[in-house]
């Protein structure tokens, strides 16, 4: 489902409160329930919750801190102890460069990279297809349920950088998996046993979409979509994200990713190995528009 904020200028991120509103509407619509607590616990039944953010592009185009803060607040409100929430990424340096305050202490939500002392990567390899990788111990040993919390952007090789591509930040050797438009690698990374077992939700920030020149930041190619994509189906979430990215490209007179030589081939591969739905016509897509006053109404994707 997509939760969109109405209005908004083209430059700024949303505030924490605006994100919070979108998250609440999104969770309830996704769960098909009216109560936020039951909606959240439908997907996150207790335990330690991980929020895998994307911080490669530093403060310019990483998972916004207000989004992560809003999600943490929401989880706490629904009964999850703050001590049981971990915002995580590949390295502490990446987190800090994106504006996150590290916290490795036992009190409060944790915020840390896999390179934090005592974490690191799994001892054993996990394999799927051509992928053989060690997986962050934050995911394998600490987190019970994970929320994939990336930003939507163009990727110079994979075409689409969104939920599944963000999971490259959970393994030790992502540089090995960029040939042939990252296909079939992106799909098989998400199919690694701990990732498949623990990734419960994709929440993709599509508020400000960099539709070309990614994954690094390029201010020439920013469009405003103003929405969050929420799904428990990682492939469907990415497929919807792709639609938005392609729309932004079209609006700005750029060729499709296919024509640009970087089709997001990994979506079909992911579907073929049973990770989810890549066919847009089979995705039951709900769109909710959240007004500035707090009201909400059904909306259109574009």
């Amino acid at each position, binding site marked *: 489902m997509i939760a969109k904020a109405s209005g908004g200028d083209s430059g700024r991120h949303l505030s924490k409160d605006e994100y919070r509103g979108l998250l609440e509407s999104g969770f309830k619509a996704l769960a098909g329930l009216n109560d936020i607590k039951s909606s959240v616990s439908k997907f996150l039944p207790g335990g330690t919750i991980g929020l895998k953010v994307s911080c*490669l*592009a530093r403060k310019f185009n990483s998972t916004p801190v207000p989004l992560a803060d809003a999600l943490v607040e929401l989880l706490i409100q629904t009964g999850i102890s703050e001590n049981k929430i971990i915002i995580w990424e590949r*390295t502490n*340096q990446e987190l800090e460069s994106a504006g996150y305050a590290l916290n490795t202490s036992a009190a409060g939500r944790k915020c840390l990279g896999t*390179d934090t002392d005592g974490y*690191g*990567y799994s001892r054993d*390899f996990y*394999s799927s297809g051509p992928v*053989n990788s060690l997986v962050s111990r934050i995911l394998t040993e600490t987190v019970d349920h994970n929320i994939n919390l990336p930003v939507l952007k163009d990727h*110079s*090789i994979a075409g689409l950088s969104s939920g599944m591509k963000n999971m490259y930040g959970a393994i*030790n*050797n992502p*540089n*090995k998996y*960029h*040939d042939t438009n990252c296909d079939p690698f992106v799909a098989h990374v998400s199919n690694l046993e701990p990732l498949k077992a623990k990734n419960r939700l994709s929440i993709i920030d599509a508020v400000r979409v960099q539709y070309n*020149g*990614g*994954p*690094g*930041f*390029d201010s020439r190619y920013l469009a405003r979509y103003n929405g969050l994509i929420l799904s428990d189906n990682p492939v469907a979430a990415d497929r919807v994200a792709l639609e938005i990215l392609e729309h932004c490209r079209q609006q700005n007179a750029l060729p499709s990713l296919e024509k640009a030589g970087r089709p997001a081939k990994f979506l079909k591969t992911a579907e073929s190995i049973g990770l989810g739905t890549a066919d847009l016509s089979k995705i039951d897509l709900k769109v909710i528009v959240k007004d500035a006053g707090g009201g909400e109404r059904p909306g259109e994707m574009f």
Partner: protein
Amino acid sequence: MERRFFLRCLGCSFLASAMLQSDFFPEILGGLKSAEAYSLTKNLSSVEARYYKKLPEGGVECGICPRHCRVTDLERGYCGTRENRANVYHTLVYGLACSMNIDPIEKKPLFHFYPGTTAFSLATAGCNVNCKFCQNWDISQSRPEQTDNVDLPPKEVIAICRNQNLPTIAYTYSEPTIFYEYMYDIAELGRSNSIRSVMISNGYMETEPLKNLLPVLNAVKVDLKSIREDYYKNIVGGELKPVLDRIIQIKKSGTWLELVYLIVPTLNDTPEEFRELAGWVKTNLGTDTPLHFSRFYPQYLLKNLPPTPQKTLETAYQICRETGLEYVYLGNLPGHPAESTYCPQCGKILIERKGYRIYQNNIKGNRCYNCQRNIPGLF
């Protein structure tokens, strides 16, 4: 300077790393302090890479190895050690050694290169292939921020060699191609300090960087992992053709060359492959190029395979000798007669080896002590 730490001991410069070890020269290493005792930096180098070009559409293309990675801002090449930062390509491992050791030169293996001497051996994280049998995967398949690194600029490497009377530096363990700039600068400095350099490589490098590197090297050992393209594609994650071309390039340059072929049961162990290999070496490099067959032990992603049977190694040896190759060796079979060097003319034992130890060396001025036949190499 805060990233640097130089370990000082008894007035000499020393270093150590998490992997520093030697059961061969404990007396030399005994004075070193483990770097684990120090707080190791995770910071990486940001030295501009060599052999890359900026692409008109944005991004850079690396020209160090045949992969020619095209890398956009903030991304890294396949080896994980080179990063594009605002369209300037950087090596992240310059001066950052993650593994160091003092090894006998026989361990490289180089059998015709100053036998019985030692080499200060070093590596950084990273590799441009991903062999399923890699013995050093914990460093070769890691990104530099995942290894414990010691800040060791070229002049410190040379200082260690001078202070410890180590005649040779070996770039080894991972793939030196990916730390080309670091290797080159050490080797160049070494040359002006009469310290030799040897590269222990997979040979998967581009022509031009290799051409410019060879004058500062004294020897190269190449792991020719198979004579079949599909093995390179499926087991190594690279290509055979550029490796064969580079081996010929090294031979033609006059830099001393030895080859190693690791025999992996069921994957590259047929007599036909040994025959093809021997024929290729004979035709392209000559019969006097040393060829080492090495025994596989289950490692990394090939733990399901058994060690190479001795008989398979002996078959390979036999075939190569019958083809006319004069210096064929078997490795990882301590005590086997095929560890030693024999005169191809009179059959006398020239260098007797057991494991990495030399028990006798009867080569006098590059000649067999008995029949005076010329023996190739640097003795």
